[in-house]
């Protein structure tokens, strides 16, 4: 029995030992922002052309799409390197039949593995759901709903310079007031290059209640206290986001008031 255990143990200890020694030192991962930014649009473009073919859209070719991506791993304080399920890819492309939203891109969730392959799932508003109806009406799998790709671990690693603005969004779904009419609004700042800042103009439908400046890091939420109490008669309050950096929602957001 000793003979069985000792060699196995020695080998395991050796592997774990080398592994932790390396972990203590510095290893640079082949999974980098630049390689993902080069690889993701290539895979997406090929598959989007497949989708256009299924849908019967004409005029969509690999050359016409001009897909560009910006990739980011979890917020501004984390280095954009290494495998993980916390990568986000912002991508823009030119298809006259599917215009980009005002912020100019769609957001892809990426799960990047240490073997230099990734799984991306697309923004369903732009790329559609798991199945689509092809031009003859059959239900088929949507090639860009979710897709796999791999990149060269020794491939070009110079920065692509692709950047997109963060999207500011109102994450509150109702406005809950306290006894004095005070309330707090939640703003979210999405993945992007420079975070979010600007002003939110608050109106109760008729008159302006005030303005709230905001500033948030990318991939974070922030709470803003309303500058004035919500009038007791107001049923709804409207917020208009006017961004200085980053992009705002496509129009004013109206929230129902809930008395606390």
């Amino acid at each position, binding site marked *: 029995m000793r*003979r*069985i255990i000792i*060699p*196995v143990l020695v*080998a*395991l200890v050796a*592997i774990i030992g*080398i*592994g932790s020694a*390396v*972990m203590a*030192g*510095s*290893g*640079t*991962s*082949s999974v980098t922002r630049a390689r993902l930014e080069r*690889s993701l649009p*290539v*895979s*997406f*473009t*090929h*598959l989007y052309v*497949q989708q256009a073919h299924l849908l019967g859209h004409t005029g969509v070719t690999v050359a016409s799409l001009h897909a560009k991506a910006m990739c980011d791993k979890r917020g501004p304080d984390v280095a954009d390197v*290494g*495998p*993980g399920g916390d990568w986000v890819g912002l991508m823009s492309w030119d298809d006259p039949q599917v215009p980009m939203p005002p912020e100019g891109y769609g957001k892809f969730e990426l799960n990047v*593995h*240490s*073997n*230099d*392959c990734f799984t991306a799932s697309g923004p369903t508003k732009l790329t559609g759901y798991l199945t689509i109806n092809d031009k003859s009406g059959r239900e088929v*799998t949507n*090639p860009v709903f*979710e*897709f*796999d*790709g*791999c*990149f*060269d*671990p*020794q*491939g070009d690693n110079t920065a692509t310079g692709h950047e997109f603005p963060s999207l500011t969004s109102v994450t509150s779904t109702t406005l809950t007031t306290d006894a004095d009419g005070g309330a707090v609004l939640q703003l979210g700042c999405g993945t992007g290059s420079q975070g979010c800042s600007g002003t939110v103009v608050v109106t109760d439908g008729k008159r302006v209640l005030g303005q709230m400046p905001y500033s948030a890091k990318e991939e974070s939420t922030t709470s803003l206290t309303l500058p004035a109490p919500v009038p007791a008669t107001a049923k709804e309050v409207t917020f208009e986001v006017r961004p200085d950096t980053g992009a705002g929602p496509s129009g004013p957001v109206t929230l129902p008031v809930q008395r606390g």
Partner: protein
Amino acid sequence: MSAARPGVVSALRWELRKLRAQHRARVVLLAALLAPVPIVVIIHGQSRPPKDTLFGRFAPDNGFALALLVLGFASQWVLPLLVAIVAGDVFASEDQHGTWKTVLTRSTSRGQIFVAKTLTAGGFAVVMLALLAASTIASSYLIVGHQPLTGLSGQVIGSHTALSLVAASWATMLPPTLGFAALAILLSVWSRNPAVGIAAPVVLGLVMGLVGALGGVEAIRPLLLTTSFEAWHGLLTQPRFTGPLVDGLLVCGGWSILSLGAAYVLLRRRDITGG
């Protein structure tokens, strides 16, 4: 040299004869030949594809994708196990049966026996892999079909190119498979126990796979035997890349030389007289 050759050849002939008589070696080869058929039939009948493995999402209705899905699965532990069943036993079985003294009292040297046994294990690995690959590719091609394949850059690969790329991908399994054979030989000589020779390479393969999947150990990852099992990805992208294949060849060569060298030294220095 000329005096040594007949010794190795006759030792090799003897080893092959022992292998042919071995029940489990035949079972492994038969399994490599037949097992892919029901696996292909079952995955082909799935309504929900196994998406968490590369090519899994296309596997139920694309023969090439299915052959690559089986490839990804086989490389996790099946190939190390199948190869170790012979390579991990070829030396240790002499211990198990107490036959070292009998073998070495013949006119063959330890070196000649080492070469013959190593060649037997290596040859078995090649035959096993070839059978498994041919059977998987043929059954997925015939049962599921030969539709154009969507590659790892989203590109569409025509049937003819896809067939040769799938065959090439299976061929890239050979270096790491031989690396595992060498590792099994080392463990077999070292432990003098067939159970260790067969089970330990599988366990080590799983551990290496786990270490390779961790983030933060990137410097060690290229040195693992299991990393070479994934080098075929580069053949199915656009443009293709072969850097990991070349690195994998060097790494597997390194593992094989070190393992066989250590095994040879251990065997040479062993005191056999005690039985």
